């Protein structure tokens, strides 16, 4: 049964990569990148169960945390044009 779920997740990852490459706007690409991140986490967990080594779940948790930080960082970059705080430089000068 894990094979079926892994196959479904793998096909979904291919479709998400397709959208990431074809996406007309940058937000489509971000959405696809987010979906790829979620798929990676589930793929890691399912593969750990398939091979009887649930230690893969730790890597999955790490990927989940990185995925969140990555998406929010990219969104902040597009929103503000940078990742630093606004007015940081003026504070240092003044």
């Amino acid at each position: 049964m894990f094979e079926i779920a892994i196959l479904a997740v793998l096909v979904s990852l291919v479709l998400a990569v397709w959208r990431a490459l074809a996406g007309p706007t940058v937000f489509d690409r971000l959405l696809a990148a987010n979906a790829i991140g979620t798929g990676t986490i589930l793929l890691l967990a399912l593969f750990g169960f398939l091979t009887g080594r649930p230690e893969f779940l730790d890597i999955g948790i790490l990927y989940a945390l990185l995925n969140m930080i990555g998406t929010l960082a990219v969104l902040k970059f597009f929103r503000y044009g940078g990742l630093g705080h606004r007015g940081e430089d003026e504070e240092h000068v003044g």
Partner: protein
Amino acid sequence: MDLAVTIASWAALVAGGFFYLVGAIGLNRMPDFFTRMHAASVSETLGAGLLVTGMLLQAGPTLVAVKLVIILLVLLVTGSVATHALARAALHDGELPLLADADGKLAATSPDSLFPGLGARLAAPLRSETVEQPEADPSKP
């Protein structure tokens, strides 16, 4: 009992895989960005939730189950936050949703037609941008 748990786990894993696939197909087939976002949320909530539930039933009450619950909680929380931020950024950037007009034709329409004043509110600077810079402390060099 063991057989019932195995069957339930099998059903959850297959259903989770199905919904995950449905979300990914929708991600490619939907006509505009906001509907694609809706399709992606199917695989991120229903698909991931059912897959993790199936693995939980396989794991039984062990440390592995705790890790699976942590993964599920992180996925649910970050998925909602990222989706909200993504939609906000897209609307702020001027991405318009496809809406049906009176004749049923789809066209990129300003969200103002549904929620009056939404466009102006989105274009306004965020609170974090308008916050006052604290006065320079004269005692500091």
